[in-house]
């Protein structure tokens, strides 16, 4: 069965390594913070200038001067640091953030990603997404495998305006975990109960299924 949003987030959290600095996009990526394995520590970077982002505040803790990149009220952990936007993107662009997790409209077999603009609809802007995909060492895309019409979001070539080129190496969808290399998607894991055939059917770009594909374990 296709994973729920929280299950995708759980699977994403398995990607984190002890000591990783992680930037999580809005939506499913943010949920991953709730599922960090107990035996590791990660530190969350928020691109508006906070390293060591903590949980949402209590009502009493709310402070208009303490927000995250999604403009939500947040807290800072003990040992957090706060800095300006240029320094924040020096961290991101300079490759100091270990893992970035973000959503996407489309990803293609060359690791290109489209996530910020659908022509004809109003453009709200790319925010920090283009910097994040240009800078992080390891970029994970989370999204549903297909859109609401059932059309694949894993393509031979992105059709929407790009956020970045040749930058995505790992994709975690409601159906599968895939790696992107050598012009193809490589199926690594499938959601429990999801068949390889269903994944093949919902993957428009070249899909390589090599050997036995295990089910995800949680």
């Amino acid at each position, binding site marked *: 069965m296709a994973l729920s949003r929280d299950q995708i987030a759980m699977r994403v959290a398995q990607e984190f390594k002890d000591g990783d600095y992680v930037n999580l996009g809005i939506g499913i990526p943010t949920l991953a913070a709730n599922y960090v394995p107990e035996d590791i520590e990660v530190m969350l970077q928020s691109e508006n200038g906070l390293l060591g982002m903590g949980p949402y505040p209590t009502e009493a803790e709310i402070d208009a*001067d303490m927000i995250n990149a999604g403009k939500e009220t947040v807290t800072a952990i003990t040992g957090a640091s706060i800095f300006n936007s240029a320094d924040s993107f020096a961290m991101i662009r300079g490759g100091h953030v270990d893992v970035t997790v973000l959503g996407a409209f489309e990803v293609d077999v060359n690791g290109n990603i489209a996530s910020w603009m659908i022509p004809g609809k109003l453009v709200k802007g790319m925010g920090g997404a283009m910097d994040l995909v240009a800078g992080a060492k390891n970029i994970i895309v989370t999204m549903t495998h297909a859109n609401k019409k059932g059309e694949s979001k894993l393509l031979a070539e992105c059709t929407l305006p790009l956020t970045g080129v040749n930058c995505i190496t790992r994709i975690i969808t409601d159906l599968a975990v895939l790696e992107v290399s050598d012009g193809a998607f490589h199926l690594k894991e499938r959601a429990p109960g999801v068949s390889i055939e269903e994944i093949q059917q919902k993957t428009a770009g070249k899909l390589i299924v090599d050997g036995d594909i295990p089910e995800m374990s949680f």
Partner: protein
Amino acid sequence: MAGFNKVVNSYEEALAGLTDNMTIIAGGFGLCGIPEGSIAHIKKMGVSGLTVVSNNCGVDGFGLGVLLEDKQIKKMVSSYVGENALFEKQLLAGELEVELTPQGTLAEKMRAGGAGIPAFYTATGYGTPVAEGKETREFDGRGYILEESVTGDFAIVKAWKADTFGNCIYRDTAMNFNPMAATAGKITIVEVEEIVEPGAIAPSEIHTQGIFVDRVIQGTFEKRIERRVTRD
């Protein structure tokens, strides 16, 4: 002898010299750490044809969004302009020009402008619509685009505290773009929650040095919260 006392007593004085068609660099991220008093006074002044460089354009009725109400803004340079119906309307009607700029590139463009760096290369946006019309170049086999710096006729900045010399500190994530904006204005105005005496802020803890600041004004702040989320 005025020496280094940058304190002014009114927004009239703070924004003296601002005229139509000027460029304003504004600090703030969303509604956090925005120069509320300067924005309100620019609305009152009624200057128009403005180019505003700011990560966001506020929301309907608050922040930079209020400058849209009387069509004072000709062009926005921002990374994210969502959450604003009036903005959308003026954009679709062709009344407003928008130059979307990646957030990190925008921060770096302001910093570079203040630091005398006219242009720099970045991988951000390479191969995307942001690269259109820009020079590209490879370093070590990777593609980069050339981005030019920005400066403004005025910079409007919100700090937590400033001393009378203009040395500033920011509070928590209300820092954001403010320190870069402060360096990039021909005239830089800082509005603060508290004006303190020189020496009250330790020299090594100062975020923006007074040399970048022309005018300091005591402000009052509503500090509206855009997305109030609690764990309760």
